[in-house]
């Protein structure tokens, strides 16, 4: 294929880190119409954030597609009920689009609530609902009154913006739940875990670290989440926010309404994970034993981890990685984690980063690293080849791109199958990176556009 060019309109969304010069990445822009964008919509953002709440009902109001494509697709695990893994849709038909879908929504809600008696219900408004003008708010109010179960509308019409706007819509819905339960019995050393979605059971590990430190976890929002816990989340003394892109809005809301401060953390990589525990411990200075315990946890876990990591590091030293993930905050953690493995990040990008994120990435990355916002597959493959990348970290749509170009891949998105958070997660991450980068299969493949000639051995066996 001929060498690709980068569209003029995209040029300012891509840049290269150079020493002593500040790079300004244009971001938070709408995707160019007609691009193969890797981004999604408002509904997608709301749905992924709220769906891990396992004892709530999640009803998608729209034609069947939106419910079908998001049926248990994220892999958020629950320690109890699994209601969130069902796919409920009003399955709007043509007549509903003409005459309105509010009645159908009402019947569907009543049927579902009668069957499941959920703790609360979320109703996701999709594109079409915004157009035909169903009064979702009114239906939710009516059902709440009639059934005594909180029914919350999520204003997630796809066209209203990007995934980020969907996070906002989700936070708005969550904000209506917090502050509605009794905080009696919530202790002084208590936190909420925000922005972890319990992929591969990650929140269970994080929660265990905190509990070992003597911290009470009031609610997990939303991984393995429960409605009643969220109702009393305002009783916690601190909000600990990961995946800041999705949850900062809720943390801000709780800070203003209930005066609960928040800190931003990341659980990826040893440094960030340890830092998260220390930051939380330091928030409770009146309880110095918490910090002591945190130190013990970090020491024990790191000591257990290091011998294995060292072995991987020896093998991976000097290998190059490209990162293209949803939120730029995650990219920052990944650059650090890769560095710990001796790997160099030569491309770092995200779907939804903001100027602050990109500035931070720039500070962290070595000169020459390409920083990219809202990349398309052609751009990704171009830089993979140019920068001689050994590993791409991304999500479902990036995986086959990496393999076609002949480089390793690590899913750091919805489709991870091993926990990547926490100290154990760092070990899993290292194993995954190692197994992909060092896989024996690459020697049979063409790599990064280079030639592989399958039958070049002229004499394979002797003829007699």
């Amino acid at each position, binding site marked *: 294929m001929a060498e690709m060019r980068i569209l003029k309109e995209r040029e300012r969304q891509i840049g290269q880190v150079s020493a002593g010069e500040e790079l300004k990445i244009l971001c938070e822009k709408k995707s160019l119409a007609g691009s193969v964008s890797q981004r999604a919509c408002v509904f997608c953002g709301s749905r992924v954030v709220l769906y891990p709440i396992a004892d709530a009902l999640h009803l998608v109001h729209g034609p069947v597609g939106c419910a079908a494509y998001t*049926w248990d697709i994220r892999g958020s695990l629950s320690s109890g009920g699994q209601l969130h893994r069902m796919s409920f849709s009003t399955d709007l038909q043509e007549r509903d689009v003409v005459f309105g879908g509010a009645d159908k929504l009402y019947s569907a809600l009543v049927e579902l609530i009668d069957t499941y008696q959920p703790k609360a219900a979320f109703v996701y408004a999709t594109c079409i609902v915004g157009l035909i003008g169903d009064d979702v708010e009114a239906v939710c109010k009516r059902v709440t009154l009639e059934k005594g179960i909180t029914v919350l509308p999520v204003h997630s019409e796809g066209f209203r913006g990007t995934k980020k706007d969907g996070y906002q819509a989700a936070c708005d819905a969550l904000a209506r739940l917090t502050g509605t339960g009794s905080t009696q019995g919530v202790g002084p050393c208590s936190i909420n875990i925000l922005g972890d979605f319990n992929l591969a059971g990650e929140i269970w590990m994080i929660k265990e670290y905190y509990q070992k430190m003597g911290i009470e976890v009031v609610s997990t929002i939303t991984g393995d989440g429960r409605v009643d816990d969220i109702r009393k989340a305002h009783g916690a003394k601190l909000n600990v926010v990961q995946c800041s892109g999705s949850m900062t809005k809720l943390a801000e809301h709780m800070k203003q309404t209930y005066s609960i401060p928040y800190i931003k953390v990341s659980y990826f990589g040893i440094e960030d994970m340890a830092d998260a525990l220390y930051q939380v411990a330091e928030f409770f200075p009146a309880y110095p034993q918490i910090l002591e315990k945190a130190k013990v946890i970090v020491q024990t876990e790191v000591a257990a981890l290091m011998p294995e990591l060292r072995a991987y590091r020896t093998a991976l030293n000097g290998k190059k990685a490209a990162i293209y993930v949803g939120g730029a905050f995650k990219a920052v953690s990944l650059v650090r984690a890769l560095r710990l493995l001796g790997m160099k990040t030569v491309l770092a990008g995200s779907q939804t980063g903001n100027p602050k994120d990109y500035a931070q990435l720039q500070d962290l990355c070595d000169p020459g690293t390409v920083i990219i916002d809202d990349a398309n597959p052609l751009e990704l493959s171009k830089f993979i080849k140019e920068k001689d990348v050994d590993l791409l970290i991304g999500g479902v749509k990036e995986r086959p791109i990496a393999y076609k170009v002949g480089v390793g891949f690590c899913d750091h998105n919805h489709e991870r199958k091993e926990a990547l958070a926490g100290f154990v997660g760092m070990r899993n991450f290292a194993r995954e990176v190692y197994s992909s980068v060092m896989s024996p299969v690459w020697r049979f493949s063409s790599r990064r556009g280079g030639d592989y000639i399958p039958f070049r051995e002229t004499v394979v066996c002797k003829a007699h």
Partner: protein
Amino acid sequence: MLLRHTPKDIKEREALTINPAKTCQPIGAMYAALGIHNCLPHSHGSQGCCSYHRSMLTRHFKEPVMATTSSFTEGSAVFGGQANLLTSVENIFSLYKPDVIAVHTTCLSETIGDDIVQIIAKAAEEGKIPADKYIIHANTPSYIGSHVTGFANMVKSMVKYFSLTTGVKDNKVNIIPGWVEPSDMREIKRLAVEMGVASIMFPDTSETMDRPQNGQFDMYGTGGTTIDELRATGDSLATLALGHDASVPAGELLNAKCKVKLYELDIPVGLAATDRFIKTLSEAAGVAVPESIERERGRLVDILTDNEQYFYNKRVALYGDPDQLVPLCEFLVDIGMQPVYVVTGTPGKYFDERMAEVLKGVPGAKFRQGAQADMFLLHQWIKNEPVDLLIGNTWGKYISRDENIPLIRFGFPIMDRVGHSYFPNVGYMGAIRLVEKLLNALLDERDRKAPEEKFELTF
């Protein structure tokens, strides 16, 4: 129990679909368009639609799936998406250089009433379409039909935009394969070659959705039906439209537009449907069935007779699309099995008519199509009276696990296993593969569950 929330008591639902056995039109249009050579599917709607379809197709095919989107905003929702589509066309031709842009609509653009024909005309007027490049479109409102309807609509558009009559008949047969895998398309083409029939297959996703690794990321792969081939379909002797829902609408249009004789057939899944396919192909092309095909058929019959004892009276539950379910159930009945429960979310009376006929000898068989014919209902039926085997897409793994029933993956999407892109289910060889899968599932289960005193070495 992942689906512990499925109660055994069946209540008629009015307004609710749970665990759907279908999805929406646009993804079908996208898959069909990927079967045109150098074609970029374009989703005229919000970004999310395009992203979801690409993700699901990627999970199924493990291939890069390229498609663009009009990236609707609130402004477009109010004022219409014309500006977005025009900008898209310009950007796509300059950046991605496809031969064809295949636009499909979404519930959003349908409801605001964007007139795609007019917008394409405007793009042409403004010189946004380079010479020898094309834009085609299909209307695919998500609130009508299902993913199969969207596939059918895009295939129909291929005829609408490209098929031509020169007045001179060409000695070829058109084959519209329906919504099948790249492997199935390959196999159908192989059978045509084996028969000595020159064919044009459209759409054709072999070499686009099952590409070899070559160290390059390229947008389109080398496969797909070319524009010249699509044009030539109008001069062919006949069209074999495989599948009532996915293929017949295009076949009918080709018949109306270019007077190409239409044969309506099932997708050749199983023995009888493949027999009909081979016979029709021989009739349409005026060729005899070669001995090599008879020998293939003989091998299938041999494996069926060798193993008939294991199939007898086994109860099977199936879900998926009508075009596949009809011949598949026919095959199961033909080999002595009992397809007792069958659901499809894809609406249409055709399914009811055919299923009534196929399942008339199966006592207590239940089948249903449309909005509430979902996997929740299927699961409830199973809870009330269990089955030995489940056949359908990946979503069935919940029921399989909860009810301890083996699952054979068949249909779309298969997101947790590979093989479907490479090994066909159609034709006699495909049927042999199906038999192998059926036997493996049943006999593995028997081995796994057998008490020690009944555990046997050979079957």
